[in-house]
């Protein structure tokens, strides 16, 4: 179970304190999949980062009784000057995962071949995404945080990723940020909508979309 209690987050800006999230409450049970909807800048990624403990809330508490992934996004959490292999080794060491099986897995899954021995900064964005996705699948978590990592690579690779994440790991909890309605509908049991820093909970994904679109046209 992950529980967020009265989470507020504000940032210092040149125009003073700017509130991004106010009084957010959310709980995610083991195996539950929650979609987060919201316009650009609504605070979706901030919410994900707070849950992953990359950032601290300004006030409020977060309880985490599951192991939680880092925010899986395009190519984040990499060291550009290191090779793909060195990045895999580093992440394995940080999370205490045996290195050789992880390398075998990522080699096979990412299909990067000889490029794994090149610095990541030489990769195309597609290659980066494949590596990022591969590494994050090599470390097992109870809950995956997915920040817009849907359209990775070509169709074949997307299908492969879908099987890895949603079929082989069907028992895991996931918190998914996406602008794609189809994607959220296909993979989430329920959804929440962020509007002006407030989080609105909905039992049905369709209700969340109704609310989202209603607000979308007003703002």
């Amino acid at each position, binding site marked *: 179970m992950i529980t967020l209690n009265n989470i507020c987050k504000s940032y210092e800006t040149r125009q003073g304190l700017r509130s991004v999230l106010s009084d957010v409450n959310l709980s995610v049970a083991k195996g539950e999949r929650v979609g987060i909807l919201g316009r650009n800048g609504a605070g979706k990624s901030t919410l994900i980062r707070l849950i*992953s*403990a*990359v*950032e*601290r809330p300004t006030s409020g508490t977060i309880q985490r009784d599951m192991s*939680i992934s*880092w*925010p899986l996004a395009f190519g*984040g*959490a*990499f*060291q550009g*000057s*290191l090779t793909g292999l*060195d990045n895999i*080794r*580093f*992440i394995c*060491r*940080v*999370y*205490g995962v045996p290195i050789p099986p992880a390398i075998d897995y990522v080699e096979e899954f990412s299909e990067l071949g000889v490029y794994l021995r090149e610095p990541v900064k030489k990769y195309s964005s597609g290659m980066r995404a494949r590596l990022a996705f591969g590494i994050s699948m090599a470390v097992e978590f109870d809950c995956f945080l997915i920040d817009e990592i849907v359209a990775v690579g070509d169709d074949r690779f997307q299908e492969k990723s879908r099987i890895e994440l949603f079929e082989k790991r069907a028992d895991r909890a996931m918190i998914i940020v996406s602008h794609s309605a189809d994607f959220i509908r296909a993979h989430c049991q329920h959804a929440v909508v962020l509007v002006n820093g407030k989080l609105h909970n909905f039992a049905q994904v369709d209700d969340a979309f109704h609310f989202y679109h209603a607000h979308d046209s007003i703002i």
Partner: protein
Amino acid sequence: MSLSNNSLQSGFAIQLRVIGALIVREMITRFGRHNIGFLWLFLEPMLFTLGVTTLWTLIKATHGTNLPITAFAVTGYSSILLWRNCSNRAVKSIEVNLSLLYHRHVKVFDLLAARLILEIVGATASCMLLTTVFTGLGWMEEPVDILTAVIGWFLLAWFAFALSLIVGAASERSELVERVWHIITYLLFPLSGAAFMVDWLPKPFQEFIVWIPMIHGTEMIRHGYFGSAVHTYENPIYLLWIDSIMLLIGLALVREAGRRVEPE
């Protein structure tokens, strides 16, 4: 719950694991896998010390005393490198490693600790190797009292670590620290006791200079090395106090920085 003790232990295990991972990563990014790779870790300070030793020999920097110049330079310049390299490496080290904080186990303290441990290991290996090689060549005598020298080195390394935590965290707060710190290290160099013995100074100046913490480390190392051939003025308890207080300040500042920084 009985969990709390376990989680404290596992928290410590995680931190050691993370610092280990960061050290390996730092070695690869800094020295790479090309040519002699991580040997640069101690070859670089060795070459530095070697250059200074040569220079000081040429200009007879022992000021007319009969102290062996090679030993004087090696002990002095090695102790400078210890705190200067550490603190210079700490400047802005949080900012350049921000993306690592994406992984929740990685803390700001770990980023700094990994760098500083590497730096201290490098300076220590350099000093030991130079002493061993020069002793073998007959350019230096063996140290008279190794234990005293080692304790002095340890206290100075601790000072370097604590100082660097402070500088590292402070440089995250203000751009000014980055610009000013290099000037401060430069000004501290002639005051740190590397290029002189306190005993050579006029009395009034001695009373002032012993307030500078590094003096006590350098003097103690030389006390251990030269034994009763020199008269030294170190006060290990004073340095120990300074080390402890600075470590507490450093840890508090690093903790505060950890709450403030946000990975991009």
